[in-house]
């Protein structure tokens, strides 16, 4: 594998160097690589539903000239002859196209001198061992989910001489354990080293929760309930901030749920603080222009929006300071600060209400007011006088973030959990979010 990695890096470097030679004086370019060699094994009923491996890679070449730009994406295989043929064709097409496009007044040219190289080696399961290693532990359970593991590479180069290489070897196991009633416990196991004992401990922990689910489910009427959200549920709510909220462009263009916070018409609880924390080291710090984000960037401090995510293009358009945000100004490595609620106090402080482990299918029901709808899912329980009484039938919620992260926020837990990113649309994503659990008053459930 090391040899293959070296070959890919050499091929990428050769592509970059050749483009630098071919570049005309008035032209600038960026070159981005996304590559992976992944195994995906899908399980259902503790059996294999689908299993296979994917070797994929693509290059995006963006050409800029005369205040215009266009891009071409093409396969990257590591075979120099084939890859250069495609790159050369792309360059020619871009030169033909670019002159007939409209002028882009906010075009940002690459200009920095950043370079970086990170290669994280690991000890993930051998391809042939994945199935038996995972299923032997859960053979007697209704286990379902997916193992995704292997090498992911993100690289960047440009005409100003910036160059970044980030390669990491990781895995995620995203699974659910069901009982016959249809109730389930969800779990994730992720990292760069497969540790047999840790995996067994995770499954044993889930088995204990399964016992709690076997009680008859309680059907609750719609209404407002005090609710504890476990870290995985908090991570789901947090993800909404990447969809029309923390982006400066969205704020400027009337498209942000945090516009009222930005205008200081509303505020959140002083207990709520959010930052981007690249010190976790799980995702590349460079963006689509080769710019490096700061190791940490505060976004919301004690309920006040102190920074939105601003990329260089938005900064140019709205006369703001860029802070290394990506093209879509989304959170890449978010962390919500812990609070004071101790693990052993969760149920007693909740007293009577809902314990929500996971959420499902979130969407803005009214974005300008920060209102989010979605469903409870997996191990969610009704709690009375500090004791778990019964699992619940899933409930729909519809509630504003200005309430649950504002006046109704009781506290965050004093511990955080890392919730790994398990998204595999187009390619396997990296990183995740570091979040605590949270206790909220009067959360609104509607159906």
């Amino acid at each position: 594998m090391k040899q293959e990695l070296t070959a890919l890096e050499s091929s990428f470097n050769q592509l970059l160097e050749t483009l630098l030679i071919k570049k005309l004086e008035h032209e600038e370019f960026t070159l981005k690589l996304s590559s992976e060699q992944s195994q995906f094994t899908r399980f259902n009923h503790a059996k294999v539903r689908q299993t296979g491996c994917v070797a994929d890679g693509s290059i995006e070449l963006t050409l800029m000239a005369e205040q215009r730009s266009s891009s071409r994406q093409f396969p990257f295989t590591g075979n120099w002859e084939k890859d250069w043929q495609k790159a050369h064709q792309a360059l020619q097409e871009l030169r033909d196209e670019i002159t007939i496009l409209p002028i882009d007044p906010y075009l940002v040219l690459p200009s920095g001198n950043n370079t970086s190289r990170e290669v994280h080696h690991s000890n993930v399961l051998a391809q042939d061992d994945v199935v038996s290693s995972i299923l032997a532990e859960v053979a007697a359970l209704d286990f379902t989910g997916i193992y995704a593991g292997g090498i992911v590479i993100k690289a960047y180069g440009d005409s100003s001489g910036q160059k970044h290489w980030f390669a990491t070897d990781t895995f995620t196991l995203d699974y659910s354990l069901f009982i016959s009633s249809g109730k389930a416990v969800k779990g994730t196991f992720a990292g760069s080293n497969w540790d047999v004992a840790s995996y067994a401990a995770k499954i044993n922990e889930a088995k204990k929760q399964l016992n709690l689910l076997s009680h008859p489910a309680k059907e609750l009427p719609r209404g407002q309930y005090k609710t504890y959200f476990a870290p995985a549920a908090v991570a789901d709510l947090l993800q909404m901030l990447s969809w029309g909220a923390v982006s400066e462009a969205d704020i400027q263009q009337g498209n942000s749920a945090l516009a009222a916070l930005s205008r200081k018409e509303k505020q959140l609880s002083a207990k709520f603080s959010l930052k981007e924390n690249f010190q976790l080291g799980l995702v590349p710090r460079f963006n689509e222009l080769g710019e490096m984000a700061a190791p940490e960037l505060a976004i919301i401090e004690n309920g006040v929006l102190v920074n939105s995510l601003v990329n260089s293009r938005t900064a140019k358009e709205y006369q703001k300071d860029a802070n290394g945000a990506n093209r879509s100004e989304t959170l890449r490595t978010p962390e919500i600060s812990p609070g004071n609620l101790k693990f052993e106090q969760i149920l007693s402080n909740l007293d009577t209400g809902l314990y929500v482990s996971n959420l499902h299918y979130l969407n803005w029901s009214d974005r300008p007011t920060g209102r989010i709808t979605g469903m409870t899912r997996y191990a969610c329980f009704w709690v009375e006088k500090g004791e778990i009484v019964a699992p619940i039938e899933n409930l729909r919620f519809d509630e504003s973030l200005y309430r649950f992260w504002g006046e109704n926020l009781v506290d965050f837990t004093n511990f955080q959990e890392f919730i790994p990113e398990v998204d595999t649309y187009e390619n396997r994503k990296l990183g995740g979010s570091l979040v605590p659990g949270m206790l909220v008053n009067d959360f609104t459930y509607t159906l």
Partner: protein
Amino acid sequence: MWSELTKAIASFHIPADWIGIRVVRETAANRYVRDGIPQANGKSTTEGAMIEVLVNGCLGYAATNSLQLESLESAAEIAYKQALAASKWLIYPFKETERPKVVGEYNSPFLEPLDALSPGEINDLLVRMCRTLKVHDKIVQTTASINTSERESWFVSSNGSEVYQKFISLGTNYGAIAQDGAIVQQRTNNGWQAHCYQGGWEVLKQENLWQRVQQVGEQALELLTAEECPNTCTNLVLAPDQMMLQIHESVGHPLEIDRILGDERNYAGGSFVTTEDFGQLIYGSPLMNITFDPTVPGEYASYAFDDTGAVATREYVIKEGVLQRGLGSLESQARAGVPGVACARACSWNRPAIDRMANLNLEPGNASFAEIIGDIEHGVYMESNRSWSIDDRRYKFQFGCEYAKLIENGKLTKTLRNPNYRATTPEFWRSLIKIGNQDSWQMYGTPYCGKGEPNQAIWVGHGSPVCVFANVEVFGGGS
């Protein structure tokens, strides 16, 4: 391509019971303008091979973006090892009959080829759209985009299959955001990315294109001063552009047999439908007739064969309100023992095929739009989806629309903003009391139906007439 792939299969040194290769080559262009300024001009080409191998009843796969013979050979060996390692743990012993021999070809119909307009001309169109959308200073954002795609696929197998399919498609999207202080309203052309079709530039050139662009801008502005949708239970009239989402979420997904079998429980979820329900579940009112129809010319997910080689035909999924068959591939049909359709599809060469809904259409009834509105004493008419959420069994849902009108005494009266509704799936479809005729039937599509582990976003098409549902909970926005 045929000879290369056939040669490749012949050269593989693996003792497999069946081998298939599916090659996909796709070039997609995305051009996007905001407020008259270009934001994206790009083309992406993807090309690769998915090799599947059947060993001892277990399918293994390996996908590679290199089509050189040695890469295909190497992938075949990986696929073989994957199948072998999993064969002791297989969920169902698949047979070669689930991958029948098939030979044929499909080509999307089109009139004007995708290269009929230059990138400059396309950008000029998009800039003009933004200018036309900007009907007032309170329009704070205008956007317009055009996506085109030319996708070819070749499927060959060790039992003699040879299928070639070529898909030409075009999607357009434009919209405006209006703002007055804290009030923000968005209006798009029938909902985000709803205009997706197979075909060439003729898809864009509708007679009333520029009037429609201006109307979208005007309606965004109109929503700023509109009343909030009332909180009440009433007659709900849904336009075809919202019915698209309704059919997709509350009929399409719950009828996918792989969901019913539990494959999706860890990600997208299961279903409230069981295998025993087929042939007897009263899903909706007798007015409800839903077809799986990959044969509609120009609909976004039309095709002649699915990605495992099953021949695609039009089938009733729900007839007169009764559930007839599921949306399940030959593999799922074998596992579940219920009738399905040709719907094993993959988003590209780098993902294995799974059960997908393709085109799913609600068949028209007899009522004209005027008759439908004229018969309603009180109700709300909603257009264009803006929010969607449904539980993992596809039972409890809540959807929001961009634009609505109050219906009073048989007439559309005041414009309403922030219209939402919620219900449960069977209760909702059983409350279908009137269905529009062919004149009100409209066809839309979306490229972003998400499902599967590993994840896949795929294209689907939906056609529907206008529909009336009785006694539905509707409500407005927050404050």
